[in-house]
Structures are given as structure tokens and as C-alpha cells.
């Protein structure tokens, strides 16, 4: 049964502590009334469970793209005291630093459309995707150690990018504090062959169009790199691959056993946690950072392949095509950040599981050229409906631990989607709409059909009206590679 929710505003709802004696803080859901009514019951129970964890501050949060996960709901945000709070691998997910990168080009839609098949086919061949995909890099264990510590910087050093890519990546593509000693040999074995691959499921690589009609903030758009009519951009969504997945598995098993040692109990075993300052907590955090940095490097290497493909098709260098990173964001991560709690500055461990950081204008962590506008937030929609570029806000920093949505959020199970549509039908319908798609799996295409996702425009409207992030532009798909 759903707990009672109290309306704070048209786009913010609260479950008070009185609803469940285990709750240490209230739980908040950002949603329009339409989205709130459609949210699955699992979200409500899970956000109440998160609000019950030790050391949690202010409130547990679920974003409008939220849906049933395990442990945390997808779209969940929670911040814990770094001194006496917990860290929970379930609050980050198996795909550590699953995230998004957006790349701008000088190419117009008119230049790209006649070559869309060549581009998508080239990308399908250059960026391995799906079950069993193997990367083109032959890495040694030592290389992976360096990647764990240096992140995207390793890739740029090896010639797979430019310094400007790092400036436009969250944490400059490298989170401090990685310790490869905390990563198992299994994770290394599992991940070595997958760096430079896309993954499967909802991972994708998309060529997109922006028109003047779909730019909502000219100043922010231009600063971010969306600066000409009918512009072509490229967006991709992937994470730390088998390397990160194994680290998550290893530490879920460690934490399952560690709970008893620290006298902790949780209603949901996937919320297994340990004190952040414990040996287990610190080991996992350092290993998580290794995976996060590997994910940054993975997206950097994929960008290199994207540049190669575009260069080959247009017979120009990537630089002369204006191919530069707009931004790269994490949406499964835990990070140490400082916020005001009860009138004083406190270091918190912010867990974002299917949620994106959204720093506001003026934040010193942002590069100077975009600082006045806030952090770019890349929100992937379905392959049929398009995506958004948003900008972070001061309101998000004050109210949601500088967090916002990550996508449109699923509203239908994969099984149900496959019963409603077939992959071949989706590909054909998209072709009729002028979107050329190559998928590693036909059943995967069906699972990712637009009807399986919430209304992206409504999800984005919610965070725009709630003040968590502002619309900059809307991007439409022209071509897509699905994992």
C-alpha cells in the first residue's frame, strides 16, 4: 500500500516521517501530478527504505523519471554524513558511472541526412555493442591500473582525445581517490576486453538534430556549443562495462556479510551498507572510483571512434568538423560534496542512482566559458522520441543536493514491451520517420521502444518548473546504434 504523500508544490511531494517509524528523514518525490499518479508502487516503498538509512541528511529524493529499482529506486538521490553515515553500493548500481556524453559538430542536418546510413553503419562497426562485444584496444593489466587512476586523461594521453574533452567532463574525467589495490583480479579479467564498447540494453549512440525552434535558451546553448541553425550533435550512453559490474558484484557480496559486523539491518538486502569510514566502506569507495574513471575513459575512447567515423565519411579532420565535447556526466555514482545542513557546511556522500549532477551558474567546479550558465545536463530519451540538454541551477544546489533527472524513465517492463512490439517493426517505423537504426539485438530494440518510456517532455517540464534544471534545447534522433 502506498504511503500518504503531501503536496509541497505542483511538482514536489513529500512522504513524512510519520508514515513509517523507521524513517530518519522525510522522502521527497519530484513529479507532476500525472507522473506521480503513474509511478509504480515500488518507488514509494524504496524511497521510504532509503530514508531509513543511518546518517541520511535532509530527505531522500526520487526524481520524476524514477521507477522501481532495487535498494534505491532508479532516479534516487540520497546524501549521508561522511563522518557517521553509510555508503551503499545499491545506491549506485551495477553500472558504476553509467553516464552520457554529448558532442557538438559544425555539420548541418542537411549535410548529415544524405550520409546517415554510412555514418550509422560506420559507428556500428567501429563501436562494438551488445552481448559479447569486444573492444579494439589490447590493454595490459598495467594499462587498466593507469586507466583506473587517470580516467579520461589516460585516453587523451594515448591520443584518443584532446584536452578540451577533459575540461568538459564531470570531474575533468578523473575522480580523485582511486586505489587499484581495492579492485579484484576478477574485475580486471572481466573488464580488460571491453574498454571501448557500448554495452547493451538502454545503451546507445545517437546522431541528433537541433533546430532553431527547439532551442529554449540561446545564451546557454551557444556557450555549451549548440550555436548554429539545424546543427548535428552526437550523444552516447554507456558506463563502466564488465569491469564496473564485477566491482559492484564483489562489494555487494562483501557488504552482505559486513552488515552484521556493524549491527546494521535493512529491509531490502540490496540496500546493504557499511559505515562510510569503515574498512569495507572505504575499500568500496576507492574501487568505485576506479570503475568511475574507467567509465570516463570508455566514453572518451568511444568519442575517438566517433571522430574517426565522421572524419572518414566527410573526408575532413574531426577538428575541421568542429567535433568537440559539450559535456560528459555520470548518473550512477557516489561523490563527496559539501552542503549546508542546519546552518553549517557539512561534507556529505551523495548517492545518485539514475540521477545527474546539476551545478548552478557560478559554480567554481565548472569551466569558465560555461560557468555563467550552469552545468550542462544531458538527458537521454527513447530512441524514437529524442533527448534534452538542460542546465543546472542554484535551486538544485539548495534543494536536491545539486541533482536532477537522467532520462525519461521506463514505465513498462522489458517483457511487456516485447509483447507489444517487435524489433523489426520498430526499425521499420523509425525508418519511415527518417531515423536509421542499427541494433545488436532485435529483441533489444523492442525492449527500448518509445512506448516503454515515460513522456520525456513531461519529465523535463517537471524539473524545469521545479527549478532543478532549465531547458536549453531539445534534440531529435536522425540515426541510432543500439546495444
Amino acid at each position, binding site marked *: 500500500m502506498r504511503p500518504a504523500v503531501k503536496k509541497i508544490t505542483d511538482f514536489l511531494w513529500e512522504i513524512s516521517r510519520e508514515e513509517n517509524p523507521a524513517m530518519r528523514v522525510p522522502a521527497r518525490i519530484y513529479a507532476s501530478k500525472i507522473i506521480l499518479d503513474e509511478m509504480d508502487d515500488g518507488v514509494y516503498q524504496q524511497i521510504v527504505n532509503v530514508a531509513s538509512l543511518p546518517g541520511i541528511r535532509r530527505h531522500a529524493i526520487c526524481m520524476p523519471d524514477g521507477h522501481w529499482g532495487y535498494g534505491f529506486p532508479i532516479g534516487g538521490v540520497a546524501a549521508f554524513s561522511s563522518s557517521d553515515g553509510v555508503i551503499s553500493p545499491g545506491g549506485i548500481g551495477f553500472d558504476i558511472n553509467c553516464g552520457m556524453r554529448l558532442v557538438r559538430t559544425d555539420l548541418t542536418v542537411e549535410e548529415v541526412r544524405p550520409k546517415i546510413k554510412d555514418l550509422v553503419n560506420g559507428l556500428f562497426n567501429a563501436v562494438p555493442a551488445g552481448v559479447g562485444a569486444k573492444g579494439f584496444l589490447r590493454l595490459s593489466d598495467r594499462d587498466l591500473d593507469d586507466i583506473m587512476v587517470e580516467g579520461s586523461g589516460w585516453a587523451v594521453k594515448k591520443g584518443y582525445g584532446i584536452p578540451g574533452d577533459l575540461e568538459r567532463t564531470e570531474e575533468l574525467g578523473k575522480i580523485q581517490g582511486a586505489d587499484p589495490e581495492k579492485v579484484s583480479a576478477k574485475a580486471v579479467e572481466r573488464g580488460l576486453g*571491453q574498454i571501448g564498447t557500448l554495452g547493451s540494453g538502454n545503451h546507445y549512440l545517437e546522431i541528433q538534430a537541433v533546430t532553431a525552434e527547439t532551442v529554449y535558451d540561446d545564451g546557454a546553448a551557444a556557450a555549451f556549443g549548440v550555436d548554429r541553425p539545424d546543427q548535428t550533435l552526437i550523444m552516447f550512453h554507456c558506463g563502466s562495462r564488465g569491469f564496473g559490474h564485477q566491482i559492484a*558484484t564483489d562489494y555487494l557480496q562483501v557488504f552482505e556479510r559486513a552488515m552484521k559486523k556493524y549491527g546494521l539491518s535493512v529491509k531490502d538486502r540490496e540496500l546493504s551498507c557499511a559505515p562510510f569510514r569503515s574498512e569495507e566502506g572505504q575499500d568500496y569507495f576507492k574501487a568505485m572510483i576506479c570503475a568511475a574513471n574507467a567509465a570516463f575513459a570508455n566514453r572518451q575512447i568511444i568519442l575517438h571512434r566517433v571522430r574517426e567515423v565522421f572524419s572518414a565519411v566527410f573526408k575532413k579532420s574531426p577538428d575541421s568538423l568542429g567535433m568537440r565535447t559539450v559535456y560528459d556526466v555520470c548518473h550512477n555514482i557516489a561523490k563527496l560534496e559539501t552542503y549546508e545542513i542546519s546552518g553549517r557546511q557539512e561534507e556529505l556522500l551523495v548517492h545518485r542512482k539514475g540521477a545527474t549532477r546539476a551545478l548552478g551558474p557560478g559554480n567554481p567546479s565548472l569551466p569558465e566559458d560555461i560557468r555563467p550558465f550552469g552545468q550542462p545536463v544531458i538527458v537521454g530519451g527513447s530512441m524514437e522520441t529524442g533527448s534534452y540538454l538542460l542546465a543546472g541551477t542554484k535551486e538544485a544546489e539548495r534543494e536536491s543536493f545539486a541533482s536532477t533527472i537522467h532520462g525519461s524513465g521506463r514505465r513498462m517492463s522489458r517483457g511487456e514491451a516485447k509483447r507489444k512490439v517487435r524489433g523489426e517493426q520498430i526499425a521499420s517505423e523509425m525508418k519511415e520517420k527518417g531515423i536509421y537504426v542499427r541494433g545488436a539485438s532485435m529483441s533489444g530494440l523492442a525492449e527500448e521502444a518509445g512506448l516503454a518510456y515515460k513522456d520525456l517532455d513531461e519529465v523535463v517540464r517537471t524539473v524545469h518548473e521545479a527549478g532543478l534544471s532549465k531547458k536549453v534545447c531539445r534534440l531529435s534522433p536522425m540515426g541510432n546504434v543500439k546495444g
Partner: protein
Amino acid sequence: MTIRFRDDMFESDAAFDAEATELPSLFAECGTAIFAVMADLASVKPVETRKIRLEDDSLEMLLHRWLSELIFIKDRDSMLFREFEVRITGLEGKFTLESMNYGERIDQARHKLGSDVKGVSFYRLSVKQEGSLWKAFVVCDL
């Protein structure tokens, strides 16, 4: 022996109930279910083997670790598995599992592939005996 995928739960992941009359068969059913998410197993030939040996103090941890090991081998060796010979001995407090797992290397051109399984969640993970049947509930992350 039966597997029932739970489409009424989870929008983005895969959950299933499994049943069998014998415990080793239950584990084998769970292995089959995990790989059925990733591929049409009719397109996978059982031509290579991998052995697994594990010990743990509970059946749930044993199942979690065995399925996780299969997923690890799937990525390390780029393999899909379709048949499992499982042997479980011991009692609560110490169980030993030994399995021979049959499959082949992934061929993206030949195999009908689905969504990749990243790992197995602890969410409501259960292995229990009810009457004459062994039952399990597993959620895997896609």
C-alpha cells in the same frame, strides 16, 4: 521444472521465479533463465565446458555466487551457457557446489542475442523448499 519471468515487477531489469523437484535442478533452472535473457538458447551449442566449484554457508549466497561466476565467465571468455550439471552437497552452514557448464563462444552474427546481464541483485533473493518443490526468486540487472 519451470521458470516464470515476472513482468509485473521492474521496468528495467529481469526477475524470475524458478521451481524444481531437486535443488541442483533448481540451480540449473536459474542458470538457464539468466542466459535465456541474453540469448535464444536454441541458437547456442553446448560445445565448450567450464567448471565451477564454490562453498558458502547459505543456499542463497551459493546461488548468488554461482550465477555471478557464470556472468563473470560470460564476459571473461565471451561465452553463453545453455546446459548445467550441478551437484550440491552439505548442510546449512557449509554447502559445496560443483558444476559443469556447457556452452559456446558468443558469435554476434549467429546467435540471437538479447540484453546483457550485468549482475545478480540481492533484492528478495530467495531459495527455499516448500513441500516437494524447491523454489527460487532472482532479480538480475540488465
